[in-house]
């Protein structure tokens, strides 16, 4: 019984995370200014990383955790570069 509960919980969590990602995408498309779009991109990659962790729990493979680590790393670099670009007009001074 507890195992079917776990299966239902994981599927429900993935559905919620997909909804969250679609909310971020809506904000990225609609966002009135550039900083809103960058913030939505940040939220999008965090949600994608959490979704990868749930897929890892569901499939029982530790490889997904490493993929999540890479997403966190590259997402940080991307958001940082975009914010720096909005601030100064160039990424590296």
């Amino acid at each position, binding site marked *: *019984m*507890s*195992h079917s*509960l*776990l*299966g*239902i*919980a*994981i599927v*429900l*969590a*993935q559905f*919620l*995370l997909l*909804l*969250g*990602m679609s*909310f*971020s995408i*809506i*904000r990225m498309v609609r966002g009135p*200014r*550039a*900083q*809103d779009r*960058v*913030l*939505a991109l*940040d*939220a999008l990659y*965090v*949600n994608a*990383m*959490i979704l990868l*962790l*749930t897929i*890892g*729990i*569901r499939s*029982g493979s*530790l490889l997904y*955790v490493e993929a*999540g*680590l890479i997403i*966190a*790393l590259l997402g*940080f670099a991307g*958001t*940082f570069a975009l*914010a*720096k670009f*909005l*601030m100064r007009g160039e990424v590296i001074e």
Partner: protein
Amino acid sequence: MSHLDALPPWAAIVVALLVLCGALLAFIGSLGLLRLGNFYQRVHAPTLGTTLGTFCMLAASITCFSVLHGRPIFYEILIGVFLTLTTPITLMLLVRTALHRDREAAAAATPPHE
């Protein structure tokens, strides 16, 4: 889900609760990102998913894999450490950028001196 059947019932319930909690927090964060009024309010919302949502999900992953493999597996903590270090940096830079751009827009909107 054959490998998840190997989990004892207490671990299955703990993992299910943590997964649901983390996903719910991330969802609320994204909902706030969509619904709140201006940028300075919106910047607070996704951090709910970044901090507590990620930590619930990492705790679920650590519990699941540690119980399944029969030995402590802790390297999911790397993701938590990395996010805790980088999120304040990016968001502070982003908010300073937004302030800078708003001030420039306000200065451009006001008519110049004679």
